[in-house]
């Protein structure tokens, strides 16, 4: 389970993210290298071209060139000119130099070749120049190219991931889905599909083994509870009969009677405990038979009429607000137990002159009762034998049974302390 601000992600998306990060970083780091490499290639290429043009000039124009032709030449050639001798220029020199471009009215970078040249015994300098690609153009182009590459790479990786996810991980997702629907004691053990991937095959066989073992343990536990409860019934019946006979003995003293009375109470508690244990082990079996539509209003009213007498003993006021025609499809024995346990709980943990409020809306039943002035520990509330209030005679199974029935039908059941009422809310909409 992920925490609130960090959602768990799919395994493949994790690896995809790794790949994307790596590819992106690699591309990004290689940009300066690409830039310098391309620039060098470009400059070398231009230098060669400049030298070639110098040679052309020397070969085709120089032999017949006269001093008088210089101004005219310079007039018609923008990029190859003859200028006055530069000082110290004894051999060819290549440099990078910005020139002002009159047409575009901007400074453009140029590669320039200065070469000493002799025309009619006079030394001149031949200037050959060529426009360079602007740096920013180069960078933009490289970035564009890389962006394109990155997009293609991502699309490719994503596509591949999807493909692998569907093909390679199919077995895994099948297993996962089966496990999600599997419930101990309710559904049959899942049968995993055959997979050709070793790891998944191993996973499946381990899971199968684990599930079989859990089912066996679960069943023997259920069986044990059921057998133990059944076996207890006979001695309890004997004990009950003995007490009944004992009570009929003549000349019992008041003290003896009172001892008997408390024995009866204890026996009643034992009986209740035993019946509840049996019930807990039986709930799963009961649920699949005899589902019928139950009118909750009728059911609640029937149960309330029974418990009114109990409530009266503590002078508890009942506030009932139930909607007509709320029906749910369920087992009638279990829903009766469910509602009566809730009501009993509300009476048992109530104080004298208290209040019980029952409200039934569409799909939602709410039972609130006064009681102890502090909220109950929710984590302990629905556990077996978790007694919160030691003063009552409850055996700590009532709420465990309620919870078990709710779980069975996937009703959500929540507890809050609201307006001094311990309030249980059951939502019958399957969660």
């Amino acid at each position: 389970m992920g925490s609130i601000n960090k959602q768990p992600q799919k395994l493949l998306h994790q690896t995809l993210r790794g790949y994307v990060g790596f590819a992106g970083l690699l591309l990004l780091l290689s940009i300066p290298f690409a830039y310098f490499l391309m620039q060098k290639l470009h400059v070398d290429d231009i230098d060669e071209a400049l030298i070639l043009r110098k040679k052309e000039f020397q070969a085709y124009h120089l032999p017949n060139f006269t001093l008088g032709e210089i101004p005219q030449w310079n007039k018609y050639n923008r990029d190859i000119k003859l200028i006055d001798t530069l000082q110290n220029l004894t051999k060819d020199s290549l440099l990078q130099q910005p020139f002002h471009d009159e047409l575009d009215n901007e400074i453009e970078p140029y590669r320039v070749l200065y070469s000493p040249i002799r025309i009619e015994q006079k030394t001149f300098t031949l200037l050959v120049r060529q426009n360079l690609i602007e740096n920013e153009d180069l960078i933009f182009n490289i970035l564009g190219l890389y962006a394109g590459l990155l997009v293609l790479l991502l699309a490719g990786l994503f596509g591949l991931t999807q493909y692998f996810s569907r093909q390679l991980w199919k077995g895994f997702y099948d297993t996962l889905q089966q496990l999600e629907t599997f419930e101990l004691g309710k559904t049959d053990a899942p049968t995993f599909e055959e997979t050709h991937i070793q790891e998944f095959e191993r996973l499946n066989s381990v899971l199968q083994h684990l599930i079989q073992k859990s089912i066996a343990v679960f069943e023997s536990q259920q069986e044990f509870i059921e057998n133990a409860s059944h076996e207890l019934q006979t001695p309890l019946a004997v004990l009950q009969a003995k007490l009944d006979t004992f009570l009929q003995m003549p000349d019992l003293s008041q003290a003896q009677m009172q001892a008997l009375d408390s024995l009866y109470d204890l026996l009643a508690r034992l009986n209740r405990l035993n019946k509840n244990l049996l019930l807990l082990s039986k709930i799963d079996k009961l649920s699949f038979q005899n589902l019928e539509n139950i009118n909750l209003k009728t059911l609640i009213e029937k149960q309330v009429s029974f418990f009114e007498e109990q409530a009266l003993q503590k002078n508890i006021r009942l506030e009932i607000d139930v909607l007509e025609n709320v029906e749910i499809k369920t087992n009638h024995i279990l829903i009766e137990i469910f509602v009566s346990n809730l009501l009993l709980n509300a009476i048992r943990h109530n104080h004298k002159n208290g209040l019980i409020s029952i409200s039934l809306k569409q799909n939602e039943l709410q039972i609130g009762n006064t009681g102890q002035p502090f909220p109950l520990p929710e984590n302990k509330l629905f556990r077996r034998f978790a007694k919160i209030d030691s003063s009552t005679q409850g055996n700590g199974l009532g709420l465990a049974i309620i919870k078990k029935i709710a779980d069975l039908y996937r009703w959500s059941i929540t507890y809050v302390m609201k307006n001094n009422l311990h309030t249980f809310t059951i939502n019958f909409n399957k969660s």
Partner: protein
Amino acid sequence: MLRWYFSAIDNQKLPPMKLLLIEDENNLAKDISTYLSSSNIHCEWVNTLNLALEKISAYEYDCILLDLTLPDGNGITILKELKKQQKNEGIIIISAKDTLESRLEGLQLGADDYLTKPFHIAELLARVHAVIRRKQFAGNNRLIINELEIDLLAKTLKVNQKNIDLTKKEFDLLLYLIGNKNRVLPKSSLAEHLSGDMADMLDNHDFVYAHIKNLKKKLSQAGAKDYIKTIYGTGYKWEV
């Protein structure tokens, strides 16, 4: 001829009712038969299926108490056998099994009642009375105890010829007390009788006191003798 189901109440000397108890738990069987015998019910007891089959073929009973799990088989066999022989005994199953299926199976095969162990013997006696009453009362269903006159079908009570208005629970309580007359009934037994299936839910039997109080008041206001005795806060007794 009709036979009173509350045998000695009307002061006529009647032959005792005959009852067959089929139960393999000796301790329980002994207590049940002791308790029933003092109500003028003659109780025969067997602890195996085979003995029981012999008995039912040879004799007639007013009522049969049948435990389902017997050492040599399932008590259901006896129900089938009784049906085959077209006998008309009242049958009450007493069993540790309390699943809906076993209840339904038993009742469908002709049992009249089903009582889950553990139970109060007073409750068993009340059920025995009820079964025999249903089987044998043809028309006459009046019970007279001194100044009290009870109509069992109409569920009404007259004291000195005057109708007394009782609630259903008060009437049930009255019959239960009378059926177990001269015996101390613990509160828990009365509570279970009054609340039926829900009995094991309750952890407070005080409501019994309220019903007893009302019943006593109605009886005394109508001029009846004070039959209901309170026993040290343990329980109550119908004393005649």
